[in-house]
């Protein structure tokens, strides 16, 4: 354990070029996936809270259940879609970071949708009538409600990011763990474990956890600044 911590510190302070590339790819893939999932999922989640229609209850249950989507299954499905023998093969996305973003966005979207729906429900129940009396349509109420649910959305964002940065099952299938192209923190940890270099694998794991803490801290800092400009 101490040996692993020493390796982790050595890698960080040695500014290892391979490590930097891996860290940058991990962050850009997972952040892109979460932003993509948020851009689609937050309005959708809010709509799910605001509109009432027949299958609404069922949909909410389904999205909550899909929060536990198995990454390997998503990876396999995206692989078959993007494969040259599959329907989207012509895009040439397989074994690229784009494929990894796609897979992670699919994994993260249900989390963002379900948590946003819950976050928006409270202000909707409290102020919904007032918003509608003021003449706003439900559609116009959505951005207002989203703006009121900052803390809940932050939770949705961070839960989604945590899921994306930590998973390996999907990206190792659609990315292929290619050195210098699609190797991320988690796939590198799998590789080093396979090689039996357990201290290095554990050291990388420690760096990954530190990264997650840093992203979470940044998000809280931004959110607080947003709340008190």
């Amino acid at each position, binding site marked *: 354990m101490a040996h692993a911590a020493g390796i982790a510190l050595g890698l960080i302070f040695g500014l290892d070029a391979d490590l930097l590339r891996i860290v940058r790819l991990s962050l850009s*893939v997972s952040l892109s996936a979460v932003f993509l999932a948020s*851009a689609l999922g937050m309005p959708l989640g809010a709509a799910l809270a605001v509109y009432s229609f027949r299958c609404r209850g069922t949909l909410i249950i389904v999205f909550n259940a899909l929060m536990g989507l198995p990454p390997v299954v998503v990876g396999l499905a995206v692989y078959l879609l993007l494969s040259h023998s599959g329907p989207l093969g012509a895009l040439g996305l397989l074994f690229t970071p784009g494929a990894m973003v796609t897979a992670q966005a699919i994994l993260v979207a249900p989390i963002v949708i379900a948590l946003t729906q819950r976050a928006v429900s409270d202000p909707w129940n409290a102020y919904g009538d007032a918003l509608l009396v003021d003449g706003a349509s439900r559609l116009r109420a959505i951005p207002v409600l989203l703006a009121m649910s900052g803390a809940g959305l932050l939770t949705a964002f961070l839960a989604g990011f945590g899921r994306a940065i930590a998973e390996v099952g999907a990206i190792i299938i659609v990315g292929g763990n290619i050195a210098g192209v699609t190797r991320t923190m988690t796939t590198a940890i799998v590789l080093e474990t396979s090689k039996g270099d357990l201290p290095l694998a554990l050291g990388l794991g420690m760096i990954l956890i530190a990264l997650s803490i840093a992203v979470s801290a940044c998000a809280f800092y931004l959110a607080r600044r947003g709340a008190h400009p």
Partner: protein
Amino acid sequence: MTRRILCLLALALLATAGPARADSPFITVASTTSTEQSGLFAHLLPAFTAKTGIAVRVVAVGTGQALRIGERGDCDVVFVHDKAAELKFVADGFGIGRREVMYNDFVLVGPKIDSAKLAGGRDIAAAFSAIAAAKAPFVSRGDDSGTDRAEKRLWQAAGIDIKAVGGGWYRDAGSGMGPTLNMAAAMDAYTLSDRGTWLSFRNRRDLEILVEGDKRLFNQYGVILVNPQKHPNVKAALGRAFIDWLVSPEGQQRIAAYTIDGEQLFFPNASPGG
């Protein structure tokens, strides 16, 4: 909040989309964990890329999966080690121009206590029989890789029907060579490994080589171009350049020059002109 999120989204997409575009020519090679994890590719590929400007992207999986990636047209070249499956891959029209590149061998590794008393033996079938007779723990890859298929053939040679074996001493790990070795090290079990992965493996604990040198442990690697007539997206010219380089005197010398702790891992044996 929403506007800030959208701004960040645009930035993040730019950050990922940027470097993916301006790429130099590259090929994708589906290969085995043994060639990647032994460090051979890290030693070999920079020389090829420096000479030709073609980058090689290696997806390292088991031989069975590598061939299926090739069947779907998701790579340009496959570089694997299961001759029977490779010949079938070519016969089925998925690949063309198979060339043999190099060989090494499999080794039977096991714990120092060696409860089945195999150390120093040279007859692999006898060793497998002894393991089964002693019901000593054995970890199998169980992942349809080249090593896994070789192991299954060796059980057959020893006259043991591994599917019918009960008793729990035969463990099917369903994973790559490294995780299988990790598992064998943790439970003091026997396992069959390719020598390349074994030499580069760091977590040996009490494991050591017990049986080696049997002719049946020979492990041939071959390289095949994915058939561009079946999959027009295959970069045939670039892929062929890679194959030609591997079997050229220069490529063969680079393979022979790769050592770990002074021990050579792979032995070039490309047939001239093949």
